């Protein structure tokens, strides 16, 4: 029997995988993809808890998270393209102009 705990543990594991990706990868596009993994883990929590409580609010919040993720992807990828034009690399360590 699948219970709420199974879904919560699964989304915890997915969120940790996304966090590991943000920490470990040295590629701006993969970092953005890891953020998407984390957003999806949170979405799964919202839908599972909404199902547990018997309300549609979880699904509605998921809908808003998806819209914000779309906006974030558009802005983030535009920034990646602009940065790539300046340095010809996607390594986040290459952008140190503001560092002293």
């Amino acid at each position: 029997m699948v219970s709420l705990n199974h879904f919560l543990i699964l989304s915890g594991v997915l969120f940790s995988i996304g966090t590991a990706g943000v920490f470990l990868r040295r590629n701006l596009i993969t970092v953005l993809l890891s953020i998407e993994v984390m957003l999806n883990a949170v979405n799964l929590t919202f839908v599972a808890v909404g199902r547990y409580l018997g309300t549609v609010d979880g699904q509605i919040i998921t809908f808003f998270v998806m819209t914000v993720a779309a906006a974030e992807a558009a802005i983030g990828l535009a920034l990646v393209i602009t940065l790539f034009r300046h340095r010809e690399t996607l390594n986040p360590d290459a952008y140190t102009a503001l560092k002293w």
Partner: protein
Amino acid sequence: MEAVAFYIFAAIAVVASLLVVGQRNPMYSVMLLIASFGALAGLYVLLDAPFTAVTQIIIYAGAIMVLFLFVVMLLNVEREDSATSVATMVGPTGMKLGAGLSVLLAIEVVWALSRLGESHFGHDAETVNISSVARIGQALFTQHAFAFEATSILILVAMVGAVVLARRER
């Protein structure tokens, strides 16, 4: 039956997400993330949320991932240059610290959640209510109407911002 489907979808989601992080080629990462989103859509169907499952496929796999694929192809960077830059700037200690922190996060979350008592899903008439698109739409356009309108402005701002950012200076 439900448990078998849950474990299959969960395994696909976890393995695909791990490969997204482990993959060197961003092209394969995007493809594997689409597989992971498909598995999550299956989980949403198991949770009586078919509307969310469909939006997951259409918006995430259909729109956002295509945007990522487009940028990956546009920039045409095959592999990340790992050896030189990582050693000079962050150093392997920083990466080890990051890996340790995320493993710690996973252990902590699983540990905390396993201490909960089992919370089983209800099987009443309310289940049918949750999966109805009519009820979602009603709540979205009455209770959450302001947030809905605010997201439309957010999308407009994001669109204008993306155009302004990616435009070439002349």
